[in-house]
């Protein structure tokens, strides 16, 4: 595909949308700078739903971290909980029973499927195809049921704990059979769904060739996850994670870099996730679910990366002498991918540009923070919301 020329700008007017807008899933503001409805530049403005999770975590016992971080996101809650416990497990060298590792992977991959199906539903909603959108949400129900059977909850299954998984997340033979049945049914229905979407000429005319992001731009703008992999950036954190070493599956890399590629990449990833879950259920090792042989103690600053459904997820913190959290940092994939699709939207029609922004699968409440950098002293200061910046520095900089 030929890249559009994104350097020549003739801005006729600005078309701002939001943050109060019924079509936006979360409150954020998009400023389109357009020339006859063709986007010349674009700016996504965050800062209306900052919740101060990192501040809340400061000084909490480490056991409580996963409960709070799980609530960072309602769609990839397991990724946050898992990554939160991975930090302390890495820092204190806590051994994880193999059975627990497998169950963590199962929960993670099922939630990845559910997350990708939300994206597909939302993408279809954005292009105005209600029937496909509703069908995607209907398909998602099978996988939400699996999460419910494993963890006891649909949205926050709370599978991992420090040292393993919760005892209630035991996968019995009966449950294994039920999950496999749901997987078979879900895969069959999803395959038919994908075939229909890809065969629909009207849908394809909307998604093909819009929101182009080259591989070079994806790397330069730090796109992550399926957004980057749809531009042929050959990286997935699962390649680096020991938990995924026992499983055989393909990483999805596409070369087109447009909205269609980002939709198709997630659709194909779902099939790979199903493959992983099947293998994990088949080879599920026997043994304990959790290792309790650890005590909270001083831990130096440690970090952990995980491949959340939307891409690279970073958690890091230190523990003081009493095992309390210090300097908790979370970086969600949206914060980097969003900037890449801002750039990708240039050259699109306004209506297509909204799809391009949605194609990063943005999860905005997870990623909101305000950082003011003093250029002279090169110091930065975190604020909980833009209004605090206004109070301190006034309306004009």
């Amino acid at each position, binding site marked *: 595909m030929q890249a559009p020329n994104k350097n020549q700008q003739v801005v006729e007017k600005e078309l701002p949308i939001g943050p109060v807008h019924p079509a936006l899933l979360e409150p954020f503001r998009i400023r389109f700078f357009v020339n006859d409805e063709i986007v010349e530049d674009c700016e996504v403005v965050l800062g209306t739903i900052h919740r101060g999770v990192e501040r809340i975590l400061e000084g909490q016992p480490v056991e409580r971290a996963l409960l709070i971080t799980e609530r960072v996101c309602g769609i990839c809650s397991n990724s946050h909980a898992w990554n939160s416990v991975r930090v302390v497990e890495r820092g204190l060298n806590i051994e994880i029973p193999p059975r627990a590792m497998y169950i963590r992977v199962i929960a993670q991959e099922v939630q990845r499927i559910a997350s990708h199906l939300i994206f597909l539903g939302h993408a279809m909603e954005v292009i105005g195809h209600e029937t496909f959108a*509703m069908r995607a949400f209907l398909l998602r129900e099978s996988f939400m049921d699996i999460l419910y059977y494993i963890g006891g909850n649909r949205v926050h299954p709370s599978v991992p704990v420090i040292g393993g998984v919760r005892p209630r997340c035991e996968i019995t033979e009966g449950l294994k059979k039920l999950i496999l049945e749901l997987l078979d049914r879900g895969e069959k229905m999803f395959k038919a769904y994908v075939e229909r979407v890809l065969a629909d000429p009207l849908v394809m005319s909307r998604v093909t060739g819009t929101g182009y992001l080259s591989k070079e731009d994806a790397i330069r703008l730090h796109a992550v996850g399926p957004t980057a992999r749809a531009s042929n950036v050959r990286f997935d954190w699962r390649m680096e994670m020991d938990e995924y070493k026992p499983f055989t599956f393909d990483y999805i890399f596409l070369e087109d870099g447009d909205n269609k590629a980002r939709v198709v990449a997630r659709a194909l990833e779902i099939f790979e996730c199903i493959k992983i879950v099947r293998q994990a259920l088949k080879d599920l090792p026997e043994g304990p679910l959790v290792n309790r042989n650890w005590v909270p103690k001083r831990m130096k600053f440690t970090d952990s990366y995980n491949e959340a459904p939307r891409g690279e997820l970073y958690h890091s913190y230190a523990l003081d002498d009493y095992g309390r959290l210090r300097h908790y940092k979370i970086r969600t994939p949206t914060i980097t991918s969003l900037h890449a699709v801002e750039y990708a939207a240039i050259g699109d029609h*306004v209506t297509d540009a909204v799809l391009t922004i949605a194609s990063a699968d943005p999860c905005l409440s997870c990623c909101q923070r305000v950082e003011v950098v003093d250029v002279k002293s090169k110091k930065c200061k975190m604020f909980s919301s833009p209004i605090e910046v206004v109070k301190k520095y006034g309306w004009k900089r």
Partner: protein
Amino acid sequence: MSVLFSRGICVISASIALLMGSVIAGMERKVQARIQQRIGPPILTPGFWSWLKFYYKKKVRPLATAPSFYIWTVVLGIFVVLLLLIVTLPPVWGFLGLASILGVVGFLKLEELLYVLMGSVSQSIMSVPLFPWDIVRGGKVLGTRREFFEQQSALRALKMIGLGSIPLYVAIAVPFAMAKSPYISDVIRLQNPAFFTESIFPLPSSPAFFTVYGFFASIVFFIGYVILLNDKPFNIIKPKIDIMEGGTLEYGAIYRAYMYIFSQVMAFVLSSVYVTLFLGIPLDVTRPALLALHLVLTLPLPIFKAVLAAFSPVLTFRQIYSASAGLTAIGAFALIASLII
């Protein structure tokens, strides 16, 4: 036929249009819901009951630059739609030449123009008014002209007037070209000569729909019908995702009820125009059997529209321009063929 009698027929026909409009809206929603494996709302809820519901809501004054003008535009829209219906009624056929292609196309164009007027003055709170944030942040490209997305909708409505709705007008011209006359009465005389007799159930002998060019024109008319009603896939004026409802966004309470009446009655009236021009069955309240047949035949178009909407995304101008050009070509073929043959 006395003037009082003619006026009575017009009032009864307008009442039937209101009734049918309220039913058609519910039928469309039901069809879409069934396709999407949902139960859907009861038939009368999206039409009749929603009108009543909005009638009792608290009135909110819109933020439009000319609020009174904005409010009355939608009321004007209802009158335009009812006038469009009235010019197709048999008692009005002899009145000032309005019962002709001129009257039909004129009122349709006026209806299209109303969307431009609505969008031009509407200014919802959801876009420009939150500007201080951008200045505080020192955001990109400051100092550019800012536009409300309702105004963008008005621009899109203008584009649709310019190109999008041409197929509909080409298709409407076909029955008139077949009759070699600009008058509706001549169109009916060609297709349904029995209508001008004393028969209580005069059926058309040679409807335009059953000719090759009439059939092609019908297809083009249907797409034009969808375009004019701003339904998917041609609802770029109000695609929900970026500029949402467009010019009609700020209609709240009773004005939203008016807006629903406007769009829902329009769905019936355009369908009625189709039945009159392409099937040769006018809306005649003095012949109950013919009236019933007319009302039944107005239902397929909205149902087909609902099916199309359920299986379509919103098209942007990239697709609409090419679709419009293709349909105009088909319509022009039908028009030329009807003139030659």
